[in-house]
């Protein structure tokens, strides 16, 4: 084939393809992609996102097809993966970990027609929308149960990174527990990873070794709960319902519910009016909850949880004063509440949390 004929043919077929696409776009399913920091099989954070993705696909019945990429590190690799997904024609891209923030923004600049949704971040752009869940609400409720169940008065947290998202969960958990027993304290171990079952388990064991008898985690695997089960103490599930991983130790699970949001985002995109509003939902919006409370939890604790849950669902803010800081100084006066902006940049521990918050003087 001569070069000119070849070129001509290519141009013609390209033009046809474009026309064809235009005509068929109504039937053509929308392509969505999800970037995961861990494996779907983590039984926690990523698993919850994948449940949400499946709910979305089901709700839209063939109007959306989605692909996933698991185990994407929060490094330069993330940008490559996101760019690749955008180049492959995905119109909706959900990047589901805090550390993807800058990579998402960078890629979004090169693909203005693609809508990006970044979970738990704080930087947005015309085509980058942020969504997040107020996990400190179920964490507070978990704290109430912990306050009732702890005999040693020592609670433990297996924590990932000292960022506001995690610090406020530690605070809420401790505040919830101190409504039951004002002398309770919380020990925190930072593991510097979101997903590393071995390390998470070691951290849990280290806490248990120091007398902690109710654990909560802000990491993605179920290893801390399993450690609690083996050592005969209590723990909470996190992100997903983890009952099955340690039925005796499991007191309740603070879960994320992403299905509703993903469905809304996909429906809006299919309708041609993509969602652009930052969403920070909690129990009220049905984006998270405390579920599967163990039958051994006493009635008094259940009632207190149910009452508080109803209050939160009705709009009462968790971080409402009086709240004292670690050193006993008044941080939030009675009757006042932290604004969303303050909650989102919190960098201090409440009274009862032990140790120094990394990075703070």
């Amino acid at each position, binding site marked *: 084939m001569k070069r000119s004929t070849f070129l001509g043919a290519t141009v013609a077929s390209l033009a046809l393809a474009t026309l064809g696409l235009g005509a068929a776009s109504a039937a053509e399913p929308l392509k969505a992609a999800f970037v995961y920091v861990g494996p779907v*099989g*983590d039984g926690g954070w990523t698993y919850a996102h994948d449940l949400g993705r499946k709910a979305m696909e089901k709700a839209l019945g063939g109007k959306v097809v989605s692909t996933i990429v698991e*185990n994407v590190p929060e490094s330069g690799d993330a940008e490559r993966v996101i760019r690749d997904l955008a180049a492959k024609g995905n119109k909706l891209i959900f990047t589901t970990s805090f550390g993807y923030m800058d990579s998402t923004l960078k890629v979004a600049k090169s693909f203005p027609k693609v809508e990006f949704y970044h979970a738990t971040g704080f930087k947005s752009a015309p085509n980058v929308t942020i969504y997040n869940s107020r996990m400190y609400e179920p964490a507070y409720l978990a704290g109430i149960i912990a306050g009732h169940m702890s005999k040693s008065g020592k609670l433990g947290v297996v924590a990932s990174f000292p960022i506001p998202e995690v610090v406020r969960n530690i605070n809420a958990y401790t505040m919830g527990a101190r409504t039951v027993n004002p002398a309770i304290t919380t020990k*925190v171990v*930072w593991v*510097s990873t979101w997903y590393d079952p071995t390390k998470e*388990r*070691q951290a849990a064991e280290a806490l248990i070794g120091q007398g902690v008898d109710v654990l909560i985690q802000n990491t993605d695997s179920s290893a801390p709960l399993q450690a609690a089960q083996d050592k005969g103490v209590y723990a909470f599930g996190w992100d997903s319902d983890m009952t099955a991983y340690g039925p005796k130790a499991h007191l309740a699970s603070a879960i994320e519910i992403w299905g509703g949001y993903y469905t809304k985002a996909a429906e809006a995109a299919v309708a041609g009016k993509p969602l652009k509003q930052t969403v920070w939902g909690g129990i009220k919006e049905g984006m998270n909850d405390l579920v599967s409370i163990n039958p051994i939890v006493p009635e008094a604790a259940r009632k207190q949880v149910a009452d508080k849950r109803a209050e939160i669902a009705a709009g009462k803010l968790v971080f409402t004063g009086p709240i004292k800081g670690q050193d006993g100084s008044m941080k939030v006066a009675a009757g006042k509440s932290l604004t969303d902006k303050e909650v989102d940049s919190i960098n201090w521990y409440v009274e009862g949390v032990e140790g120094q918050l*990394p990075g703070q003087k």
Partner: protein
Amino acid sequence: MTLSVTPLVASAIAAAIPLLIAALGELVTERAGLLNLGLEGMMLMGALAAFVAITHGASLPWALLAGMLAGAAGALVFGFLTITLQASQVATGLSLTILGAGISSFLGRDYVGYRAPATFETLPIPGLADLPVVGPLFDLNVLGYAALLAVVGVWYFLQRSRLGLHLRSVGESPAVARSLGLRVNRIRYGAVLFGGAMAGMAGTYYALAQLKMWQEGLTSGNGWIALALVVFATWRPGRVAIGALLFGGVTALGLWLQTVGVGVSTFALASLPYLATIVVLVSISADQQALRRHAPAALGKPFFDGD
């Protein structure tokens, strides 16, 4: 502030055991002249096989056997490619890691979210297990005790047995060993399979003794640490044991210091294992002579065993 050190020691030993098992296997493989970078993959395959066996009603010994066979199966692939076909050991080993991670996560999908119905529990030695600080050494499970015995066993095999001498000579100079009438490839296959079985046992430890469940990538890179341990230990079993304890210890130490409220930056604590790696690397490479004296001379080099 109550300082109880015993939990720290217990945690360090628990982390050290699987490193020790995997590293001992790799040590034997490397002493025969083969560098198998596929440890992580073989460990994952072993972990999954043991977990699958136990959930389908196998008893613990059978599950362990399944884990070791799965590790050995991975090693057999490595052996066939590198010994028989003389492919690059580095490339083959890396592929084996990727293959093991991929296969185990694919086949393991249906096993995520279940607890192992039977697990290796600790068998404390009465009297000794309650001692402060060193007590945890006498409070291990069967695999833990086996690992300690294996240190002595591997040392005795390599230094005192005839077959061990043959294996070492194959690792030093396969050509000379061959001219003396040794069956080089047969010995190398044996060493590789032993390494694979040990890696499978280490994986079994993660699945049925430590985490007691199956999760994708549950070995979390420890295969690589075990691999590094062999070099750190300059191919000597006793030093592998010390190195494993050191590496298990630094991670445990970083977490333990936080629970007792020592005001050290958690970022510094998190970097402890890496700092330790650098320190050890620098200190052993300072003595190039020793490194060269102890490294198997034919390590990583393909050998054509035939006429």
